């Protein structure tokens, strides 16, 4: 029987159900696209991933693109395992990308190829300087809006993935899609060049709206492809299998 987990070292997310789905966690150094429409729990799941990392002693970095970090923290679920000392001690770092754009002089609405290189290098330097092992960018879609063309998006994600992977960083790129989308990303490029795709969605069943999670792909490991229902709770994201009896006829 082929090994289910492969030889790759794992980044244990700390989210029990997800680690089970992934046979032990995300293969280290992978760049994972965490995708879904609004209100599906992407940011909460991504934050939990970082908090567990920080608690376990791994330096973790949250790059916020759309929302101010302070506002984000004000709305955080009151996790039992979250301690603000993680931020004070530098284990968990929040960086607002708009501030980084400004510092790098990227004031125009569209980034040039040179600016993309500059941005990737700046993020790489930050990761290196802080010794970051887990990174979340929320959201990659907002960055892509500044890149405009598929070529630039491909270039940016490939370079980001390469530099983060080389630095031993396991990254989660949050992607926003429309609720009606059949793809996994807004520009169609992000999904093709990520090592993994975790899809979060709202599923309607007989008038009930269920939050679901499904791992679509994950390089370097076998994984469940089933759909799970999730709840965001103070003890973290909880997952249970979607009951199939209810899917009949929907």
């Amino acid at each position: 029987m082929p090994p289910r987990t492969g030889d790759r070292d794992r980044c244990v997310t700390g989210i029990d159900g997800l680690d089970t789905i992934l046979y032990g966690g995300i293969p280290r150094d992978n760049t994972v696209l965490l995708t879904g429409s609004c209100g599906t729990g992407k940011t909460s799941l991504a934050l939990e991933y970082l908090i567990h990392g920080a608690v376990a002693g791994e330096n973790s970095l949250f790059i916020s693109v759309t929302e101010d970090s302070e506002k984000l923290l004000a709305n955080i679920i009151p996790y039992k395992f979250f301690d603000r000392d993680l931020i004070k001690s530098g284990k968990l770092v929040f960086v607002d990308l708009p501030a980084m754009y400004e510092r790098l002089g990227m004031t125009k609405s569209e980034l040039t190829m040179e600016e993309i290189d500059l941005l990737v290098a700046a993020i790489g330097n930050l990761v290196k300087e802080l010794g970051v092992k887990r990174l979340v960018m929320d959201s990659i879609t907002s960055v892509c809006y500044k890149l405009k063309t598929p070529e630039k998006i491909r270039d940016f994600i490939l370079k980001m993935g390469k530099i983060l992977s080389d630095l031993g960083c396991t990254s989660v790129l949050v992607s926003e899609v429309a609720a009606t989308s059949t793809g996994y990303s807004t520009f169609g490029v992000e999904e093709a060049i990520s090592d993994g795709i975790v899809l979060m969605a709202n599923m309607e069943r007989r008038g009930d709206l269920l939050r679901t999670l499904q791992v679509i792909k994950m390089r370097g490991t076998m994984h469940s492809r089933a759909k799970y229902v999730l709840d965001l709770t103070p003890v973290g994201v909880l997952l249970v299998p979607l009951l199939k009896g209810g899917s009949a006829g929907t």
Partner: protein
Amino acid sequence: MTDTMAAENIARQLNEQAPGSAVSLQMNVDSYLDVLRGVLDVYANKRDMDTIYVTATISFEAIKRVMQALDIDTSRVYFVDCISHIMMGTAAAQKDEHASLVESPTMLENIMLKVEYLMRRSQSKEKLVVIDSINSLAIHNNNWILSEFLHILVSGLRAKEAYTVILTVEEHTTPEISNMVNLVCDQGIRAAKGE
């Protein structure tokens, strides 16, 4: 108000169960109070167990009032209330730390999630999960999904060595429901009055 002998008889039979057991507790409508006393007071409270009480029949508030009227200590009872939300009566549950709401009894996965959450929060060594009742859940769900729900829920609780008691009301039980419950339970207990 309750039949002490009947309550003690229920508790005695529950005490004979091994950790991780699932029991089908068949009752008639008249024996409901004996069942509450037997399961929650004489059995769970005496063993210092936390109880997760899934109610799909009446609101948690109503059951809590009944328990209090029976002088049952409710400090270790945590409710998963699947009915208040659809009756638009959520205000009390939103304020009560012992109550978690599920929007509808059709959201069976969310019932499992709330049970899982309360299991994780519980500090007690032994835990009891009561489903009140399978008949009420059957009003809102078809047998296929309900059977799947019971199987996954009970298997998960078994793995955690929690005790499960599934209440079935004889007057409302069909052979299909009985089969479904029997499939996941290790033993059946009858608590019927007037026989």
